[in-house]
């Protein structure tokens, strides 16, 4: 049963970076039609987002976020014992991008570095993994980098073209004997693998049709682009997420009243409101960032925190419940305390790493 408690964990810093280029749903009026765009906005809630267009990518954004933490809080680079990079858009098939980031960030060579391939549930998994490393006492500080670039959706797929935004986050997590607990619960339903998948380009199907073809319902994409069965994902989310929250509350003997805020993966506004209503989470406890940042995949939880705290947060330590859910199908809920003052405002980053390979 993947549920329980981890002890002595504190977040000492959190930062998020987005690319400079801002796009608006209204930019698609001509290509997709105003009616289709307005309907999408009313249902999904995404009015604007930031895109790197394949130039500044996930690792660049996470690099910028990490550098921001070093410069604002003065963390000693040599104190980082482990670097975890969670993404589904890494720089290369190999080596792990975390190794490249260890080099770029000038971290000590006696630190661990690894990539984790998860999307929507990626941040909560990353927090839990970092916290697990910290339980032993030998690893004292983890740098968790989580981010994604929206480069896998077809721009001619009207269900996805306006949805996803790019973002990268950096979180410093320490072991602290005086710090609070992390409550967690995870679940996986791999029978849903087909509902959100990029069929070709991995090793199951290295070859495929590179051309975009009409798949019906306004979806034109190639085999190397994301297939998303919106109905199945929606059904999974509206039924399984409230169930998981209920199991989480029961196991930890808590309820919606225990937590100051619920930070949910920013998939779709209608879905978020429905989950909140079903789980009896008051709407004032549900910050929303997807209207201005889109669905930033694995980074959506830290983006929502860094969007909320500097502008709407008060000077205190918040008890947050975070839930990531989606691609896999994978679901994770983690709760922990976060001091408003460790959350930096979201900023734009443009620096691209020159790898010297081509």
């Amino acid at each position, binding site marked *: 049963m993947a549920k329980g408690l981890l002890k002595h964990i504190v977040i000492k810093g959190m930062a998020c970076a987005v690319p400079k280029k801002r796009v608006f749903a209204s930019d698609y009026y001509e290509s997709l039609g105003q009616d289709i765009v307005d*309907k999408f906005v*009313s*249902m999904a809630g995404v009015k604007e987002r930031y895109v790197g267009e394949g130039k500044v990518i996930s690792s660049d954004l996470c690099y910028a976020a990490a550098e921001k933490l070093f410069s604002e809080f003065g963390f000693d680079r040599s104190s980082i014992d482990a670097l975890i990079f969670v993404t589904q858009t890494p720089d290369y098939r190999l080596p792990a991008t975390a190794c490249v980031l260890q080099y770029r960030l000038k971290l000590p060579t006696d630190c661990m570095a690894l990539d984790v391939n998860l999307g929507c549930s990626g941040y909560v998994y990353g927090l839990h993994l970092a916290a697990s490393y910290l339980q032993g006492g030998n690893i004292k500080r983890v740098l968790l980098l989580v981010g994604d670039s929206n480069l896998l959706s077809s721009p001619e797929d009207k269900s996805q073209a306006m949805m996803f935004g790019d973002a990268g986050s950096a979180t410093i997590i320490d072991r602290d004997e005086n710090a609070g607990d992390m409550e967690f619960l995870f679940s996986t339903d791999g029978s849903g693998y087909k509902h959100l998948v990029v069929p070709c380009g991995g090793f199951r199907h290295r070859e495929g049709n590179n051309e975009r073809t009409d798949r019906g319902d306004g979806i034109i994409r190639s085999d190397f682009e994301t297939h998303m*069965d*919106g*109905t*199945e994902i*929606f*059904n999974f989310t*509206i*039924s399984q997420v409230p169930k998981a929250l209920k199991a989480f509350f029961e196991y930890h003997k808590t309820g919606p009243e225990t937590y100051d805020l619920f930070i949910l993966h920013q998939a779709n506004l*209608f879905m978020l409101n*429905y989950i909140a209503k*079903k789980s009896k989470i008051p709407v004032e406890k549900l910050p929303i960032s997807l209207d201005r940042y889109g669905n930033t995949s694995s980074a959506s939880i830290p983006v929502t925190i860094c969007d909320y705290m500097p502008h709407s947060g008060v000077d205190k330590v918040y008890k947050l419940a975070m839930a990531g859910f989606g691609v896999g199908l994978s679901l994770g809920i983690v709760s922990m305390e976060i001091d408003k003052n460790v959350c930096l405002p979201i900023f734009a980053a443009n620096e691209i790493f020159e790898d010297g390979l081509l």
Partner: protein
Amino acid sequence: MDNLERIALLAEMLEVEEEELTKDTMLEDIETWDSVAAISLLALMDEKFDKRLSGTEIKAFKTIGDILKVMV
């Protein structure tokens, strides 16, 4: 739940008057029956009937009566 209550739920979802809907009403004649309404229907089925509809089932609906049949 009887059919009148079911029709009331659908009318609210489709933002039309209850009187406008009968079991024979064609979905293609309802202006508000679109992809947004389909999502609302998924939520309604989950909330009131603890049931999940597939995309294929929704596409096969032709009349209000087809939807009423699954609202159990």
